[in-house]
């Protein structure tokens, strides 16, 4: 088949999509920074840093509204199809997942503000919340890199990383119950930690959702509701 006349050019729609991609990455970096700051605030019981996270959340919401509006404009004005359409649909969903991830960082920051002064740091080790935080942040960072590079192999690696979050989350109730029985004066902080673990487990889910969207727009494969083992394999539909 003749290959002449194939000219790759950047169309106005391509330019809009590039701008949108940059904007979403900016939002992603902000959400990641929110998670990292929430983690630091928790580890160091730094209430000022926690307040910073809460106040920055408004900017994350602003990003969400702007990206939604941009997607709506592009859909109305350019009527994208095929990979462009899939990209926009993916961006809309990633945007929603990122905003929720931002809400989680804010929620944990609010717990930090309410933590009592005589908080027992032993809870960190017992529940493995810091390990969980590290893993959740790494997942969000990795899925961002996969989006930036359109790397579906990297996106597929996210699914297995979620196992650790699930394991820590599954064990948390028993550990916290046991701890509360032994340290009844620490009920409030123990419940804050348990709630934070629940929230971090959801961060893992958001990261997985975002990875699914990257695979959807790059390969036109729908991985939603598929077993984890199939999601990780490239050849499986």
């Amino acid at each position, binding site marked *: 088949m003749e290959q002449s006349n*194939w000219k790759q050019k950047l169309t106005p*729609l391509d330019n809009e999509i590039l701008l949108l991609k940059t904007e979403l990455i900016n939002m992603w970096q902000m959400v990641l920074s929110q998670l990292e700051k929430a983690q630091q605030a928790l580890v160091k019981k730094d209430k000022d840093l926690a307040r910073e996270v809460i106040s920055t959340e408004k900017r994350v919401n602003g990003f969400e509204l702007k990206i939604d509006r941009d997607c709506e404009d592009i859909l109305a004005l350019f009527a994208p199809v*095929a990979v462009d359409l899939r990209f926009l649909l993916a961006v809309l969903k990633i945007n929603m997942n990122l905003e929720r991830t931002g809400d989680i960082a804010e929620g944990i920051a609010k717990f930090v503000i309410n933590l009592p002064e005589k908080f027992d740091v032993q809870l960190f080790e017992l529940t493995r919340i810091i390990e969980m935080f590290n893993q959740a942040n790494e997942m969000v960072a990795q899925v961002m890199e996969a989006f930036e590079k359109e790397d579906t192999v990297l996106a597929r690696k996210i699914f297995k990383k979620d196992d650790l979050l699930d394991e820590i989350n599954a064990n948390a109730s028993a550990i916290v119950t046991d701890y509360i029985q032994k340290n009844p004066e620490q009920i409030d902080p123990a419940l804050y930690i348990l709630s934070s673990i629940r929230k971090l487990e959801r961060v893992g889910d958001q990261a997985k959702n975002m990875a699914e969207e990257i695979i959807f727009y790059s390969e036109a494969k729908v991985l939603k509701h598929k077993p984890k083992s199939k999601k990780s394999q490239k050849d499986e539909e």
Partner: protein
Amino acid sequence: MESPILKATNFNAFFGKNHILKNINLEVHKNSVWAIMGPSGCGKTTFIRCVNRMHELVPGATVEGSLKLKGEEIYEMNPVVLRRKVGMVFQRPNPFPTMSIYENVIAGYNLNGIKLSKMEKDDIVETSLKQAALWMEVRSTLHKKGTFLSGGQQQRLCIARALAMNPEILLLDEATSALDPISTSMIEELIQQLKSEYTILMVTHNMQQAARVSDKTAFFYLGELIEAANTKTIFTNPKHKKTQEYITGHFG
């Protein structure tokens, strides 16, 4: 599965030494709407002109391979009989300028020397104009010249003229590209309605129209049929890179 109404097998078309269509293999089933897309010069119009043998009207034009209408080789049929079975509507509305609306609709019968009673003619005119969604607008002016109608009405008159012969296939060659959005939308609606009785092949440069109206899409490039699939698949997940590049505006 029902046998296809139109079947191209290793079909080739030439203008002199120019190889215009290259090994086209396509099956069109009854009551489907096909959009034929591709950049200018890709052979899409030549393909539909082969279906009613208008292609051979150009000196030096030849074909190879098989193109069958309901199992019968198109290039072995009497062209006059074939054209009764294959209606065609062109880019610019072209009602016969000396004929009234009424005469335009039954022109196919008159020009073929088919005698009809007044009642039969009235019936064909009314049915065809109703099918073309024009009856209500012209029923009181049937004996006025067709050229007095608006562009959109003239195009629907041309569709009525094609439908009057009760064709197996209706070919639309960019039939809405010279029309305003309202007339375009009326014809698109009409295509949807006609689908229940006819099989339609439409050449269009308007990709959104192809997406809105057709069930199946065939993408031609440099005389080859690159991809033919459900329109939904072509517009959401085309299998061929060239189809994707064309519909996303990266060439053409």
